[in-house]
């Protein structure tokens, strides 16, 4: 029962962060700020949801379920290495192709 509460909390938090990511991606004014929301929120929400799933999988603790949980953690570790790299690559691509950052005082022109 306690495990279920932990799982629901983790997954719900993950969904909350992903909701924030979505709002950021839709509402932020320019590419760099949107990428900020996407890069951070996406990674943390994936982390929390996958952690919840891995814990839920340990309901019937045995060697095989532990192995599956370790595999889910491997996905998590992969995300932790790959997602920031991908974010860096996308930001770099935008910077190289000269996207102008958004300035507050130019709001009327933009």
């Amino acid at each position: 029962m306690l495990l279920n509460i932990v799982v629901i909390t983790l997954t719900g938090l993950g969904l909350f962060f992903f909701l924030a990511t979505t709002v950021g991606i839709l509402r932020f004014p320019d590419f760099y700020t949107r990428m900020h929301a996407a890069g951070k929120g996406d990674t943390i929400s994936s982390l929390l949801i996958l952690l919840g799933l891995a814990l839920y999988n340990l309901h019937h603790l045995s060697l095989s379920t532990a192995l599956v949980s370790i595999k889910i953690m491997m996905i998590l570790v992969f995300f932790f290495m790959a997602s920031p790299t991908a974010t860096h690559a996308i930001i770099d691509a935008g910077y190289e192709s000269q996207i102008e950052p958004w300035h507050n005082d130019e709001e009327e022109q933009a």
Partner: protein
Amino acid sequence: MIWSFDLLILLFMVICAFFVIQVKDLLGAAIVFGVYSFLMCLLWTEMGAVDVAFTEAAVGAGVSTVLFIAAVHRSSRQVKPRKRWRRPNKAVGLIAAGLLGGVLFYASVDFPDWADPSSPASTHLSPYFITEALADTSVPNLVTAVLADYRSFDTLFETAVIFVAGMAVFMILGQKTKESAQVGIDLTGGYEDTIIRVVSRALVPFMQIFALYVVGHGHHSPGGGFQGGVLLGATFVLLAISFDLKMVLGRMSEKKNLLLANTGVLLYSGIGVLSLLLGANFLDYSILHTLLPSTGPVVARSHAILGVEIGVAITVMAIIILIYTNLSSGGTNEKGL
């Protein structure tokens, strides 16, 4: 199958497909097509076709998007508006698509209900595969058993088709003069991005081990030769993207690739010929137990399936690398994506 997911994914897919053909920028179209393939993979998983989903994840979402990007990189990205004198084409397209849709909608009334267990497709041959495959081949993954044992002849020629496709790309693009394969490992050429390089160099060995696991574990979980081969090829594509085409070609030269592509098909058909020589039919693996010590005919089939999968994986890997290197460099093998 999960009803609610199915409807959502299908709606998602129709939106994606509509926008793929509407986007005016070819790179954008390639990216939206990648998203379409991601969703396609989810659809297969949700319908229970895990092996198909694995293949789609590796091929559709990964490699074919990279191939589209490579082709757009070597050609143009622009879609020009059509000139006036060819306008009737649009009407022809609409009429043909409408006709096809009308005929198929009319025919869909006669289709069996979706997910009906007693539909004709699931009643004649497939119950035999489901109930007997484990006893016949001792392979729990029914898709692997049917792929590499019952329908082995078909799979042999599918592998040959991939081999021929790779050869065709090589013949179409590889006509230009090439530098000989002495290029070596050049870490300084091309655009340098330390973060991407370090991360890909750290990840690639683990990805390759995972790909080998996929090839070897295809008997018990989704996976097998096609999926593992594509994943192995994709790791080399990642190296070629994050470092340099020459770095990959220094390790996997074109000659080596061609040799490997041949070896895979040869391994597959060699197992078939071996069973022919031992007195059974072509690709009838159960006779191989006379060669393998302390195995019965059933386990021999399981071992031979592994051998066949390895052959498929080698060919698919070599052909994926061959297509990528030729396509991204325009056949010159000098500068890639």
